[in-house]
């Protein structure tokens, strides 16, 4: 039986020396869908993330990737099966260039490396591999820095390199770990726009773990909310965010304050942001079949944002 879900997690349980970090958490991500996962500090987001990726072994529960049970698989096996990721604190390969990051991922994906090939001098990247990498670099707007050592990139560019590296593995689902951390509002928007454009072109799914509620509201169509290791709400993003349970338990008055602070911090960008936010909310409220809307939203929004984005990068 082929499951439409690219990622299906059921009944994940994890305790750390008696303290329950995750209690019976289940979630699904469909092909090509954008799903958010939020929760206050200590809610268990990172633990869940690590269980999905195979960094942690859950005490109970199952992780299925494309209908295959990968619960017992190691991290790199899951990656080979189509699970890409980015890191909250960026993890890049020091002492290498931007293009080499993608080249190595490409080589691992098509699994064409062999010891004897290396020895015979046939291990160097070939033209096909280089052009595949350059295509992705162009798409990310990193074409100009392809030869640049990774140390001299900005944080925003570094995060894009992570995305590009993950893309080279041809993922079915991309797990983004707080992509906005360390970025300011405009950089975050630029990243979201680029990601959105690529996602709608390639059709992989995204699971976004985020602190930045605004980004989640704009970017995702469905949302899971985690608190004290349990899912307290899930459903379409706008509705879930608006639901009183989530507002009371998690966002409270804090969200409003944070939003205001952001607005005050960079006035010039406030317009675009508010515009996008309103558009998202309006779309969400107007069309009940949300998944479809979400996709349209994903496909429709970025072009509007892209000119500005291109300039930023």
């Amino acid at each position, binding site marked *: 039986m082929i499951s439409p879900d690219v990622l299906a997690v059921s009944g994940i349980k994890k305790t750390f020396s008696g303290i329950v970090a995750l209690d019976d958490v289940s979630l699904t991500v469909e092909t090509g869908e954008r799903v958010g996962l939020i929760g206050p500090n200590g809610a268990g987001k990172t633990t869940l993330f690590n269980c999905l*990726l195979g*960094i942690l072994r859950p005490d109970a529960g199952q992780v299925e990737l494309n209908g295959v049970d990968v619960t017992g698989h*190691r*991290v*790199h*096996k899951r*990656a*080979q099966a189509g699970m*890409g*990721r980015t*890191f909250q*604190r960026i*993890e*890049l*390969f*020091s*002492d*290498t260039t931007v293009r*080499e990051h993608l*080249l*190595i*991922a490409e*080589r*691992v*994906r098509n699994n*064409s*490396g*062999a*010891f004897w*090939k*290396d*020895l*015979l*001098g*046939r*291990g*160097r990247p070939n033209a096909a591999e280089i052009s595949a990498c350059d295509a992705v670099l162009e798409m990310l707007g990193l074409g100009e820095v392809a030869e640049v*050592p990774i*140390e*001299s990139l900005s944080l925003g560019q570094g995060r894009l390199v*992570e995305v590009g*590296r*993950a893309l*080279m*593995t041809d993922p079915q689902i991309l797990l983004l770990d707080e992509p906005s951390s360390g970025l300011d509002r405009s950089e975050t928007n630029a990243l979201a726009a680029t990601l959105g454009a690529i996602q709608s072109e390639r059709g992989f799914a995204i699971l976004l773990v985020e602190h930045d509620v605004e980004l989640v509201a704009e970017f995702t169509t469905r949302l899971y909310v985690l608190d004290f290791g349990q899912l307290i709400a899930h459903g379409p993003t706008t509705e879930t965010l608006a639901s009183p349970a989530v507002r009371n338990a998690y966002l409270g008055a804090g969200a409003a304050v944070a939003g205001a602070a952001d607005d005050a911090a960079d006035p010039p960008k406030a317009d675009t942001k508010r515009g996008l936010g309103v558009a998202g909310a309006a779309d969400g409220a107007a069309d009940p079949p949300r998944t479809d809307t979400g996709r349209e939203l994903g496909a429709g929004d970025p072009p509007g944002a892209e000119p500005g984005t291109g300039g930023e990068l």
Partner: protein
Amino acid sequence: MILASSFLEDLLRSVLQGTPSGAVFALVAIGFVLTYKTSGVFNLAFGAQAYISAAMFFKARTQWNWSIPLSVLVSVFVLAPAIGVVLERFLFRHLRTASAVSKLVVTIGLSVALPALFEIFADYAPVAGRAPTGIVPEGGSVFYDPLGVYPFSRDELAAMGVILAAVIVLGAIFRFTPVGLQMRAVVESPRMTELNGIAADRVSAFAWALSSTFAGMAGVLIAPIRFNTLISTDFFNVVFVAIAAAAIGRLVSLPRALIGGIGLGWFIAVFNTFLPRWADDHTWLRPLRDNFSNSLPFVVLFAILVFWPAIRRATDVGDPLSGVDPPPAAPAATERHRLLTRFTLLFAVGFFLFVGLTVFFRADRSWVFLVTSAVVLSTVYLSITVITGFAGQISLCQGAFAAIGGFTVFQMADRFDLSVLLAALIGASIAALVGAIMSLPVLRLGGIWLAIATLAFAFFFDAVLVRMSWIGGGDTALLQGTRVPRPILGPIDFGNDKSFLALAVVVFVITSLAVIQLREGTIGRTLRAIRGSEVAAESIGISPAKARIAAFATSAFIAGLGGAMMTMHQENVNYQNNFSPVGSLFWLVLVVTLSVRTVEGAAQAGAAFSMFEPLILKGELFAWLLRAEHRLPGFFPISGKWRFILFGLGAMQFARHPEGLLEHGKRRATAGLNRRLARRDQTRLVSRSADSGGGAT
């Protein structure tokens, strides 16, 4: 009934016998944990520090005839803490945010440099057959037997008493003084502690002084109990046991280190009492019996690393605020201007032609020998380029791998009269297999633990395997030596030194080309990715374990091949001179100091090892420049120990410039020249508006 009671009596006796050593192990383990806790330094130079104090005490007593209290005061309470403070102030304070592995390399360098430095400045030479004296008069000859089972010597009782006092004082410091609390805080995060208004530097200096004092105390106490002579390599073993003890406490628990040390002392003593009896009944245990007692610490350590669950979970001490450092400067451009490339090529060809022709036509036998040694050693050093330069793993057992190659050639030639060239390939393959198998259980440990496991393996090989008749030759080898013939290939007899040099060069060139291909190929890129970020490498589907096994096997193969060439060259295995574990520590230090990531680095290290002493220290080069031997100034020849000091201290820069001193200089020079040439190109471009190709790769 009688049997049982005699068994119990033996058990009690061996436990009592093991207590004094166990107490010393505990002391070293505590000092070890203390440095690790307060500065994140896994101090392999601890043995060297213990040795310095012990040697100082010995010299003060026997040559200067100082009184015991004065000797103790100077060697343990003045010299030892002074060394600790100096190391902290001038070295480790600046390395606090460096990775644990690079700090480990620095301490390996120190463990090579410190004993030589002391021996030169204190004018101390180890005297064979002269037993070290203890801190009490007639410590080795007066015995007390309180239980009627095992007579303690005065030295042993004194050691136990002093250590008990030291532990109590330390416990009091940690529990009742603010500095104890601060020391614990500094471990967590030096910067965080400083933000709280505590001078982390002062605390860490105090910890270093304290732990260094412990090292000195341990050295002075253990020398009369365990050793017949006072040489620096013995003290390495003490550190080993202490690492094992400290590992039981996952390097962070002082009480567990204490218990672990005493426990190991007992365990070793009990084992040494009972193993001979089992061996009487089981003949296959005999080679073990004869050699195992020496190797027990290493076996225990290896077993702890593999099986102790705490270590599997342990992670390196990381400063949560270390990420706020600015990123390291971008490496100098790897691209060279095409003119520069041409010039380098021209120079290299000219240089090698000159050296080659000189060696082949003008040099006498001894110089041909030295040059061949350099080439062969360079081949061995390429194995370090692969494992440390590419994979970023510190392997301290390259000497053992090389020895496997050498011994295979010896055995094959001795027993089966096999062609030595074929035997060399077989030996290299066996080394590769051993490397892969050895790395298998400890691969996941990574970082310093993997390095320590390789060191344990090196010492185990040294203490047990070499003595096996089917490896090191056993009794035959003792009687006749481990002779190896030179190869004969068709009409060419490599018995001629110059043709063997040609063969060595060919082997080195082929190996270098293979290494370069690996670096540019999938393996090299994969390893670079893992070294850059292991989690990120895994996230794109790379299996770090697989890649590391490949790296270990490749590296061991190259080492085995080089080792085989070395034995053919010297027509003997010469295990003690060529492949001893401490010797291979120096190999690593040498390669890392010069340039660990490049083939040229390996070649330069090979040349440095075999020719630095005759060329520089003996003044040959100077004499050649002055064209007259009798005009050599009086300070030649300089002691060969300076080799250890210079390169040992050179390893310090590894934390800052992991690419190596030579490579660092080269990168800077290249960058400077590139800029100039680019500027020249620019002006030409402007004036002529002609096309310019830019840099060539």
